[in-house]
């Protein structure tokens, strides 16, 4: 499959090879330069509501940069974005409020906060307690804190780590930390979740659980679509409804997992031949 041409009538979803079911996030013609280095060039793709879109590609292809563009950490030099139909100019701290949450490569937990507090921090923007009520410890602040706490504990329970609520991240095994990070992301009730290498450093078992979880996300009570960067192909193939392949900052292929698996360009640039045993 060839990269989408800019004048294609159905630019929004053409890249994903999926019928337009109402795109949640849509990128058109995104370009990014770092000094002389072209990190992204004319990237268009869409994440339809209720889908799990995987972004794969060789190291340095621009996957993280793409996420950074969506999150507002990097300003694109070209292109436009819409989220849920409306033009979208992201600012990192407003994302959560808009319904987009991202996890970081690694874990990115706050080391000075307990697990529970970490998760509560994820829902900061939903708190209605203002400065004054917090400063004076008014009932409103207490009420909101209690609400956050309940929600956080609920999610920790869902992730199966509720018993670690009082612990500090550094003392926990990596897999548990990853779960906490996921809980922190989900507590914000996102409608679009960006996962940056969620399987990195996880064991096969944990990856299976992660896969089950991600597959279930669109069907959750607070349904959310997912965009995912990952090098672990098993996971990608298992959970994604569509995959976009980047190389040297350009979309070189997109389609369903099966299409991608068969695509020789992708094999050449990214998958390589499995080491034969």
């Amino acid at each position, binding site marked *: 499959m060839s990269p989408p041409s800019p004048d294609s009538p159905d630019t929004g979803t053409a890249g994903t090879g999926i019928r337009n079911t109402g795109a949640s996030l849509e990128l058109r013609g995104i370009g990014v330069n770092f000094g002389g280095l072209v990190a992204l060039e004319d990237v268009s793709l869409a994440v339809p509501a209720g889908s799990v879109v995987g972004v794969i590609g060789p190291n340095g292809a621009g996957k993280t940069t793409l996420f950074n563009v969506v999150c507002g*950490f990097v300003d694109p030099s070209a292109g436009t974005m819409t989220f849920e139909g409306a033009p979208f100019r992201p600012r990192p701290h407003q994302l959560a409020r808009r319904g987009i949450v991202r996890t970081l*490569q690694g874990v990115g937990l706050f080391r000075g906060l307990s697990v529970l507090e970490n998760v509560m921090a994820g829902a900061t923007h939903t708190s209605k307690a203002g400065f004054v009520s917090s400063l004076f410890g008014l009932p409103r602040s207490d009420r909101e804190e209690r609400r956050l706490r309940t929600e956080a504990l609920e999610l920790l329970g869902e992730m199966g780590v509720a018993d670690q609520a009082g612990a500090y991240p550094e003392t926990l095994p990596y897999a548990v930390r990853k779960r906490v990070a996921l809980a922190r992301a989900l507590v914000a009730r996102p409608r679009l979740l960006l996962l940056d290498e969620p399987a990195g450093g996880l064991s096969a078992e944990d990856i299976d659980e992660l896969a089950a979880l991600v597959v279930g996300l669109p069907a959750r009570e607070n349904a959310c679509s997912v965009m995912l960067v990952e090098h672990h192909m098993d996971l990608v193939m298992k959970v994604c409804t569509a995959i976009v392949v980047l190389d040297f900052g350009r979309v070189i292929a997109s389609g369903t997992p099966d299409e991608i698996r068969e695509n020789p360009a992708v094999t050449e640039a990214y998958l390589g031949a499995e080491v034969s045993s």
Partner: protein
Amino acid sequence: MERFIFLTFDGVSRGAIYAAFALALVLIWRAARVVNFAQGAMAVVTAYAAYMTYNSTGNYLLALLVGLVGGLLLGAVVERGLMRFVGHANPLNDVIVALGLVLLLTAIVGMIWGGEYRAANHPFDTNAIEVGGIPLMTQYDLFIYGSVATIVVLLALLFTRTPIGLRMRAAAFAPEVSRLLGVRVGRMLTLGWALASLVGTLAGILILPTELGLHPHAMDLVFASAFTAAVVGGLDSPVGAVVGGIIVGLILSYVSGYLGAAVTPIAVLVVLLAVLLLRPGGIFSSVRARTV
């Protein structure tokens, strides 16, 4: 116009010394990621050593040498004997220990030499060299320029051209990784401190004749100016330290000359804010770190 030229030259000669002192701070920052608040007090100690030598022998070069070697030793001793044992759980710990060291050194100097001001003599002609009737600089100023320039060039070479420089930088940024790569991190730290203390001593000895004189607190205010200079230039950049030093020197001179000496701290703050708001890592900061 005449006044402007005069003030410019005055500012530059002052600035050169702040630059040298700022260089010492930059060195330790690069070598150990510590802002050495004890730099001033350490320079006072070695300046006393140089002072005693000059007074008893009358040989300026010998005194300078004694001071510099003393600085080297003192830096190494402070690192080996003290800073090495400071817990790094919190970067403020270094600051506090350095402040403790300042008090201790100041007290010891006070006990030995008393609180009196002592004249910092030197063998240079202090009559200004006049150009077009404007007294521009003295022989001593030229000596300062020469010394500071030499130090800057040597340090720049050391850091960018030599393996030792590379080791020092690596050790400062990522001690654990550096150790795995065979870098003797402890030694690099000691070396960094020793060198910084040497440069600090040089700056101290150079600046004394332009200050009120040698006494236990002789470097307190110099430290503040030099720190400002280092921050303006960007703590990671030796060239920045020099430019920062000269900028601070010029501000102090212009503001003091046109607006009055009392206003200088306000001017320094304003310039500092202006520079750092535009470039939060100092004028010579390199690329902004990628965070995600």
